[in-house]
């Protein structure tokens, strides 16, 4: 049946889009050993995924339209079923498009926009808390490890110098 072939193709393309977007994220998850080849592959995928997933999603849409136009049994149920199936299969394609543009790890560790600073007594850190301390051109700044350890990246400008605290 032509419909089945089209649906299979659609599914393959839609899930490829999702896989392509997921792969760089999964490659860079903590539990694995990472080789330079892993990093190279993740980099290539991440660079190509935003464009490729759009191409795949468009192809999926076209296939979906073709499936829709295939003959089907009369009645509400078959129509609804086909519609539901198409939506279900198209979701991974659009999921891939979106995912290729976001960073999964940033969902786990929110970036800190607009870092604020205060006197030690007002900043909320305890005296015995570990901080990363720097001094640039006479200006001193302390970054509590418990904070930077969450965001992982904190941008700042100290003594006129743009810096980044990482942990």
């Amino acid at each position, binding site marked *: 049946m032509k419909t089945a072939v089209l649906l299979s193709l659609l599914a393959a393309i839609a899930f490829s889009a999702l896989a392509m977007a997921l792969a760089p994220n999964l490659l860079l998850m903590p539990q694995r*050993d990472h080789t330079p080849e892993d990093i190279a592959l993740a980099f290539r995928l991440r660079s190509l995924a935003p464009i490729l997933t759009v191409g795949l999603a468009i192809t999926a849409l076209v296939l979906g339209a073709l499936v829709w136009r295939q003959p089907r049994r009369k009645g509400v149920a078959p129509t609804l079923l086909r519609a539901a199936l198409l939506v279900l299969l198209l979701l991974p394609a659009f999921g891939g498009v979106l995912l290729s543009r976001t960073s999964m790890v940033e969902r786990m560790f929110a970036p800190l926009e607009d870092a604020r600073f*205060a006197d030690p007594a007002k900043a909320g*850190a305890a005296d015995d808390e570990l901080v*990363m301390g720097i001094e640039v051109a006479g200006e001193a700044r302390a970054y509590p490890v418990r904070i*930077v350890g969450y965001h*992982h990246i904190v*941008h700042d400008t100290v003594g006129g110098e743009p810096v980044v605290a990482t942990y």
Partner: protein
Amino acid sequence: MWSRTVDGQVLTFRLLGVNNQNFLMRDEQTGTWWQQVTGEAVRGPLAGRRLRRIPSDEVRLAVWHREHPDTQVLVREDRFAEAYLKEDWEERLLDFPAPPAAVARSGPLEPRAVVVGVRVDDASKAFPIERLRAERAVADFVGGVPVIVVLDDDERSARCFDRRVGDRTLELFRLEESESLALVDAETGTTWDFSGLATDGELVGQRLTSVQTLTSYWFDWQNQNPSTQVYGPSLLPAASGGG
């Protein structure tokens, strides 16, 4: 701690993922991927470049504040209060397995043994924190440079100083009578505090030069410094000491 300026361009970074449990970040300006602990660009237009390291200290806020009375501190935000690392984060993290290959080659130390790492030029040495807790002040050499690694009273904050002052190389020892960490040098009898300042004696007022340290897990330090030495008697066979 890194400078964000590369070739006159100021970069902003986003978190990307993890590479052997050390995270990767991507700059928004060029799309280059950077390794957090080395500041080295591993992929992308600036691959091969390194961020300039800014000397940093990892000490208790009370110590930092005492030494820098005008310091500003990053504010703890309510909206992230639940997300920040918990007080016992270091104990919790011990349960998280290190990457398998790193575990396999970790050898004489446990993968998650905490070490104070010192690198001078191409030479690296790891000082296990357990040894530092036992001795509090360890005089040693890294790449031929005479150093002393000291552990503060919290038994967690470490600093490293170059033992050379002027023409002398000091033999520094821990001052036993002092409750708070203090050092004394054999030649002049000068006492030195945790900030490397001479507080009493012939060399009073002089400062020891700081040497950058990195407190990390052994597996991570070893990963970044494959030929690292380890402080401590008969921990590593001479052949693998390298340079």
